[in-house]
């Protein structure tokens, strides 16, 4: 059974490089609380965090206070650089 108090955080590109993992679990809460937890656990993420955009359950989320309930998925997207 999945842990019902946590969320899945998926990290890409420079964010994955900073954290050292492509996904981690964190405590449910608000978006900003989840990101604060990542910064505490992975100091290299501090520099990358302000450059990223975020998906909450596959939908763009720009509200730092958005509720991230248990079982949610967060995608951490550094600035795009295609083409």
């Amino acid at each position, binding site marked *: 059974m999945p842990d019902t108090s946590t969320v899945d955080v998926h990290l890409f590109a420079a964010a994955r490089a900073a954290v050292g993992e492509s996904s981690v679990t964190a405590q449910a809460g608000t978006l900003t609380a989840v990101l604060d937890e990542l910064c505490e656990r992975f100091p290299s993420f501090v520099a990358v965090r302000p450059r990223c955009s975020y998906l909450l359950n596959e939908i763009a989320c720009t509200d730092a206070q958005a509720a991230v309930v248990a079982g949610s998925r967060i995608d951490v997207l550094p600035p795009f*650089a295609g083409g």
Partner: protein
Amino acid sequence: MVLPQADLAQYANNGGMSAVRLVEVVDRPLNLEVMQAAVRDDRAGAVVTFSGDVRNHDHGKSVDRLTYEGHPSAGDVLQQVAESIAAEFDLIALAVAHRVGDLAVGDAALIAIVSSAHRDVAFAACTALVDRTKELLPVWKHQVFADGTDEWVNCA
């Protein structure tokens, strides 16, 4: 993924038949001939093709190789971008592809092709297709330089 929906809504302005013929985000070499064949149409008087290739230099440093990483939604986003351009311009056909994975210098990372009855429309649409793809496609570029250093582009 619905990330770019809000950004894209401003562009859509008609409900005509879509000109979109081919959209892909793939982990293999892009095939220009296949894409140009996909847009062939006897109604088209002007075909404009953009190829974004891996350069051997960036910020004055020599590039050895690079890797593009795509978000799982990249294919869906590129489809939305393509449809938005097709809705906005009077096109006959459109094809767009982005490569992910390991690329060498000279390899094409992005190919965008549009055709129209007239050249001004084709140039404008191809420019917009490339600009919008670069703005909205969730893809990242990791460059390794000849001096051994590396960087995530736009995130240094």
